[in-house]
């Protein structure tokens, strides 16, 4: 399993890997928002956490459709399906590798974008923390979508359409926890704990669903 993790990480940093593109997309999306709403620093700092979260959500979905599709195209998926390792575990490891290569850079880049959005230090920290906790849930949900769409020729857009509605709870609690850290009356812990619970829940449901879908996608 370690071998699979290392191989996937290696693939994502080698030429043609998508690790850089996700962060770049994230920065670009967040950077164009001020051109739409204007450079009013107060307004930007108010909507900042929401925008950083939406940007991260979109860029986390960007490379997800390739999670199983590349494996299928070169035939590796067949061999992975045949092994005696539990498929759920294999999917979990693949999700982990994808998260490390694609989502962790987003978490690391988010404080920088927080500065651009003129967010306070507390808000920046809160957004980075909620992203760190919440983004694995996005990967796990996305894995189900990627597994369902694995055999489709133009699965990429479809994965986003399938997964975005399912990711709404993550967005709700992630953003509300970030705001709760800044605005006094609202407590930070309840939404943050719910977010953690969602991540743990999908860490179980996601790989199970993806494994089931992969087993049935055989042709």
């Amino acid at each position: 399993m370690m071998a699979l993790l290392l191989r996937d990480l290696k693939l994502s940093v080698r030429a043609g890997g998508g690790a850089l593109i996700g962060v770049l997309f994230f920065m670009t999306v967040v950077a164009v928002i001020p051109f739409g709403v204007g450079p009013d620093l107060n307004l930007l700092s108010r909507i900042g956490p929401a925008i950083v979260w939406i940007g991260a959500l979109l860029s986390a979905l960007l490379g997800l459709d390739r999670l199983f599709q590349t494996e299928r195209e070169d035939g590796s998926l067949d061999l992975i399906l045949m092994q005696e390792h539990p498929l759920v575990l294999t999917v979990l490891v693949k999700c982990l590798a994808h998260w490390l290569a694609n989502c962790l850079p987003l978490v690391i880049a988010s404080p920088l974008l927080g500065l651009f959005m003129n967010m306070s230090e507390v808000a920046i920290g809160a957004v980075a923390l909620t992203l760190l906790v919440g983004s694995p849930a996005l990967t796990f949900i996305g894995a189900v979508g990627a597994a369902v769409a694995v055999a489709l020729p133009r699965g990429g857009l479809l994965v986003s359409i399938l997964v975005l509605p399912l990711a709404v709870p993550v967005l709700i609690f992630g953003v509300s926890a970030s705001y709760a850290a800044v605005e006094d009356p609202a407590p930070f812990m309840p939404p943050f704990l719910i977010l953690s619970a969602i991540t743990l829940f999908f860490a179980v449901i996601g790989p199970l669903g993806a494994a089931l879908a992969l087993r049935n996608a055989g042709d």
Partner: protein
Amino acid sequence: MTESLAITKFSDLANPARFLSLTGRIIPWLAGLTLCLFAIGLYLSFTTEGDYQQGDTVRIMYVHVPAAWLSMMCYTVMALSAIGTLVWRHPLADVSHKAAAPLGAAFTLIALATGSLWGKPMWGTWWVWDARLTSVFILFLMYLGLIALNRAMDDPSKAARVSAVFILVGFVNIPIIKFSVEWWNTLHQPASVVRLDGPTIDPEFLTPLLVMAVAFTLLFFTLHLMAMRNEIWRRRVGAQRRLAARMASREA
């Protein structure tokens, strides 16, 4: 006579092997000169007086302005190389603009970071969507996009041609971006925000600034030549690997 000499020199350079041996001799000198200039520049920039208005923070200028200047010069070098790729199909031009993209990104990053560190004590915030800063930020995104584009394609000469087109389109676009960002900025900007213009530059600051600018420029060219050598070697490795694969077939 001189013209034909120039042409032979140029075609000499066209040969990558010639280029490698020539740059191998030049690079140590260039690096040494860069080091000396940096030593002088850094000494000057810490010994001159501070500005009465901006205090000591004016010293940030000695890195910020040269880096900003380089971020633009690097793009110009890339645009010229892109013309070389598209018009003369010169292999060294491909190598040149591919090697320059990460350097440009790094210098733009320095300009952004030091600008932000300058802005914090001056404006009280790390970042304002000021026209100049915003344009530099867009330039930074363009550099990163180019790096990603170069990485995404296997065939180096095809990648070079495609990114050359993109570089030129971007080059034509830069004035438009600059203009529209300024227009957008004046549309929204409340008059209270402090602009960076300040008083005209004192000759006292000018000397260290110029020395640092020259030092940074030389640093860029040193690194550019080194990166070009790396790129040539990278292509050579690729070609020899393909050759190795073919030879293995023949022997087996």
